Structure formats: C-alpha cells, structure tokens
C-alpha cells in the first residue's frame, strides 16, 4: 500500500524500462533457443545437398558447393521410395478412416446416451490408457500370428475399427459440450439415435474430428515399432522402416541418408503448414482436457 502511494510517474518509468528489458531478454533467449531448435533441421537439409567430399570437411560448411540435387534421385531410387510411400499412405489413411468411424460412434455412446453401466465402462476405458503397451504386445502379436497376418499390413490397419481409447475420450469430452436440447428436439421429431449422431453431432464435431484425423495420420506415418514387428517383406515396408533399413546398409553415406530423411519428413511438414491451427489447437485440446 505504501509503495502505491509513491509518485506515479516514477513507477511508470521504472515499469516501462523494466518491461523493455524483460522483452529484450526474452527475445535474446527465444532467438538463441530457436536457433538451437532449427539447427538440426537446417543441418539435415544442408547435408542432403552436399557432394560426398564436402560432408566431412572441417570446420563444417553450411552452404553446399555445388548443390548436389542429384542426391535426391539417388536416394529415392536406392530405397523404393514410392512403394514405401504408398504403403505408408495406405496404412495411415486406412487408420484415419477406421478410427473416425469407430471412435465417433463409441464416443457418442458414452457422451449422448444415458444407459446403466455407462460410467463403469467409461472408467474402464480411462484405465486402459494407463496400461503400458509391452504388456499386451506379445499376446496381440500371437493373435495376428495365428491369423496368418504377420508379414502383412493387416495388424497395422484393422485394429483401428475397434477404436482408440484416447481419441474416444477426446471426442466424448467434445460431444459433452454440445447442448442436449438439440438431441431432445430431434428425438421429439422422431429421429433415431443414429440419425442424431449422423445429422446433428457429427457436423458440429468437425474441429474435433480434424484433430483426431490429423493425429491418427501422424502417429501412423511415424510409427516404427508396429512395422518393425509385423512387416517382414521389403515390398511392404513403410517409410520409417525403409529409412532404417537404408541407414543400416549405407551407414556413412550421410548425404544420401539425409536426403532420404528429408523426403520422409516432407509430407508431414507440408501437412503441418497446411493445418497448423488444427495441430496447435488439437495438442492443446489433448493436453489440457486430460
């Protein structure tokens, strides 16, 4: 209280300079961290365009001379990039569609219909989120082995039709925010639950659906352990697995390897810039509503 009784201008002055100093310090720290974060990415690009001889030059050169654009076609033919790309795209798109179908239905059952036993089953769903995946990994592998699916992409795709606990939870939270009056009005008009789900809830849930689609796509595009366990034939490899195989075969050809890495990342970087808002809003949604 005493402090606030001091003459106002002095407070303003010191406050202003302090504010400026904080901003300056924050900017310096942010620029430094941003450089640190961007370095690996820039280094990957730089290496991917260097001729072999320049890769090992010390001190390192950032600008390749000349630009070896040729590294890219070489990398793309060394790994059958388009085959891997298609395989990965197939798995990712399949998962997006199947996850959207299953999770939106299940979330509707948990959020918009009041039935006995619902809350208990929902607690079970939340509990399954905490199970470490190695516990279920081996018997799941054996199930697919029994089905004769090991060596095919099926174990990486079909399970998506059974829903994903995390996305069900996410969608359920979103559905809960839609006013019940909308459903009730439709019910009075004689609409079935499925009609309400399809005509009222789904259109309103579009932002949440975009989040689920995006993160499902990303998770499957980047997945390594699943393809490592289930895919045996090179014809079926995904990009992540193919890139790993490439690294094993040509450990020291960093130019080619970084070119292959860049083309693996490129599709999702493009996706990121196309859907940046959905990404940032989505991760906020997933993080804080937990």
């Amino acid at each position, binding site marked *: 209280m005493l402090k606030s009784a001091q003459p106002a201008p002095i407070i303003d002055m010191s406050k202003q300079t302090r504010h400026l100093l904080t901003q300056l310090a924050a900017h310096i720290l942010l620029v430094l961290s941003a450089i640190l974060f*961007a370095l690996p990415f820039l280094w990957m690009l730089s290496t991917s365009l260097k001729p072999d001889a320049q890769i090992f030059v010390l001190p390192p050169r950032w600008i390749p001379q000349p630009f070896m654009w040729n590294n890219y076609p070489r990398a793309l033919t060394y790994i059958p990039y388009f085959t891997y790309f298609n395989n990965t795209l197939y798995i990712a798109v399949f998962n997006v569609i199947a996850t959207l179908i299953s999770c939106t239905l*299940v979330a509707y059952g948990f959020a918009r219909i009041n039935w006995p036993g*619902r809350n208990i089953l929902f607690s079970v769903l939340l509990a399954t989120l905490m199970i470490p995946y190695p516990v279920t990994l081996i018997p799941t592998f054996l199930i697919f082995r029994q089905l004769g699916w090991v060596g095919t992409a099926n174990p990486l795709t079909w399970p998506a039709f059974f829903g994903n606990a995390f996305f069900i939870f996410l969608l359920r939270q979103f559905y809960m925010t839609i006013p019940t009056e909308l459903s009730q009005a439709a019910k009075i008009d004689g609409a079935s639950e499925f009609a309400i789900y399809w005509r009222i809830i789904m259109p309103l849930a579009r932002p949440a659906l975009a989040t689920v689609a995006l993160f499902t796509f990303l998770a499957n595009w980047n997945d390594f*352990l699943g393809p490592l366990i289930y895919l045996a034939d090179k014809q079926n490899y995904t990009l992540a697995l193919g890139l*790993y195989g490439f690294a094993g075969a040509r450990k020291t050809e960093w130019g080619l390897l970084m070119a292959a890495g860049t083309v693996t990342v490129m599709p999702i970087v493009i996706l990121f810039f196309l859907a940046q808002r959905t990404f*940032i809003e989505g*991760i906020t949604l997933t993080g804080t509503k937990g």
Partner: protein
Amino acid sequence: MTELASPARVTPHRARSRRWSRGVRHDLINGLLFVSPWLLGLLIFTLYPLLASLYYSFTDFNVLQPPKFVGAANFIDMFSQNHLFWTAVKNTLIYALMAIPLNIIFSVCLALLLNLKVSGMSIYRTIFYLPTIFPQVVTALLFSWMLNPQFGLVNALLKQIGIPGIGWLTDPSWAKPSLVVLGLWGIGGSMVIYLAALQDVPRHLYEAADIDGAGALVKTWAITLPMISPTIFFNLVLGTIEAFQSFTFVYVITDGKGGPLDSTLLYGLLLYRNAFSYLHMGYASAMAWMLALFVILITLIIFKSSGRWVFYGGESH
C-alpha cells in the same frame, strides 16, 4: 441394472414406470450398440492379452512349441541371475531421472518466455513445435549424424569455441545424456500445452499482485507455477510412463544393440530383444508385467504426492 429394467409391480405407477423402463432398456441397447466396437476391442486386444501375458510370464514359451509352465522361474531369473536385467533397470532409471525433470523444466521455461507476448510468437512456436512431428527414425538418424564424434556438427562447433570433442553416442558415459538431448528436441508438444495453461491463468491474480508490488519472479513462483501445476502434474505422469517405455530412439541409434557397452540398453529394448530376437516370450512377458507394476507404483506415488504440490484452485479443473 436389472432392477431398473424390470417392470414395476405397483399398479398406479404401472403405465408410467413401464414406459420409463422400456426407455431405459432402449437406451441400454442403443448405448451398447454404439460402444460395441470398443467393447469388442477391449475383449480381444486388451483383456485377453492382459490375461494371456500374465499366464505366459509363468511359462517357458518360444512360440514354436506350446508354453510350458515353469512357475516363478522367469521372475527368479530376473532378480537373481540375469545381470542384463539389472543393467537395463539401472540404465532406464538414470535415463528417466535425467529426461523427465529436464523436459519439464525446459518446456515450462520456453512456454513462460513465449507467454511474455513477444512479437513473432507464432514463428517461435512453429520452430519449437516442428520437431515433435518428425518421425522418431528421422530424428534418431539425424542426431547420430550430428553427434558423430569425428565429423558431427556438434563437436565441430564445440571445437571452434575450444572445447575438445566428446564421444557422445560412442562413449558409455555420454550415451545416455545424448539420448536425453534427443528427447529435448521434442519438447515443443508439452510447451504448447503449458502455453495454453498459462493463457488460462486469470489476469486479476497478476493485477492483485501488482498492487502489492510483487516482482516478476515472485509472481511466477507464487501465481503462475501453482496455477499451471495441474498441467505439470499431467505431463509428469505421461512423461514418466513414456520414459520407462522408450524404445525407438535407442533402437535406431544403436541398431538394436543398446551400446556402447550396454550403456543405452533400456528396459524396452531388452524386452523387445527377448521377445522378438530370442523368442523368449515367457521371459519377455514377465518383464512386461514387472514394467506395468513399476509404472503403476510410480504413478500412485506421483498421485499421492500431488496433494502437496498440485493446486486445484483454477477454473474448470
């Protein structure tokens, strides 16, 4: 459940209760129909595997022959004979104790910086967030190139400021810190979450503190951190579970070997190797259950401790 669904016997209410109970039955059928995909998945891909792996953990099982019951032999072997098991436990604990706190500290600090309403905030946010969408394989290969002891960028830059080269991934004492650094490149995701939490902190708290003449540090310590503590708590639980299961980075970097000298043999890697390289499915299942019990224990401890440091006074938490 049955009580609600059975028709009421009392006559005056009969008509109404009947309609109501039919409604409940109707809702029950609809509800179950809607959740049935997940319910089936729960049975096939969660409950059955849980029970099966519990059973396998007491067997000797190499996939080709049916499992042979061996009692607690797998667990006894783990605790008394298998030194690799303890190497993996020790490595994982050291890794987790470095990675988890550093991840939280750095991501909170970055979020605090971005929350200062500096100009160009969205550009910074994009730069920090972008690495988190990278496939782990790419990140792992990129860092094994940058941390290459002879020609890597990091040692080259260190040399320019007079620091002698470090062995990073080839030196047993630096290999684990190198993995931690790799993980730190991906803190952008939790940073975005903290940033959202920071933006939810009510303004009036800071205004009240301003009137009392509190400085920036005091405000951060007394208002900001308590207000975002539920988010820190959430990230701590998730980060812990993740750290104890980490696999891909170390598998790709060490080519599945956990080298040098087993210094990066993490628990997940040893488990994978037992299951899919040696086909010791029984032993691997036992390892998986030990991991599950350990994770549950740690989570319980974090939850128990949360009463002391997590502040649930915020809105909508």
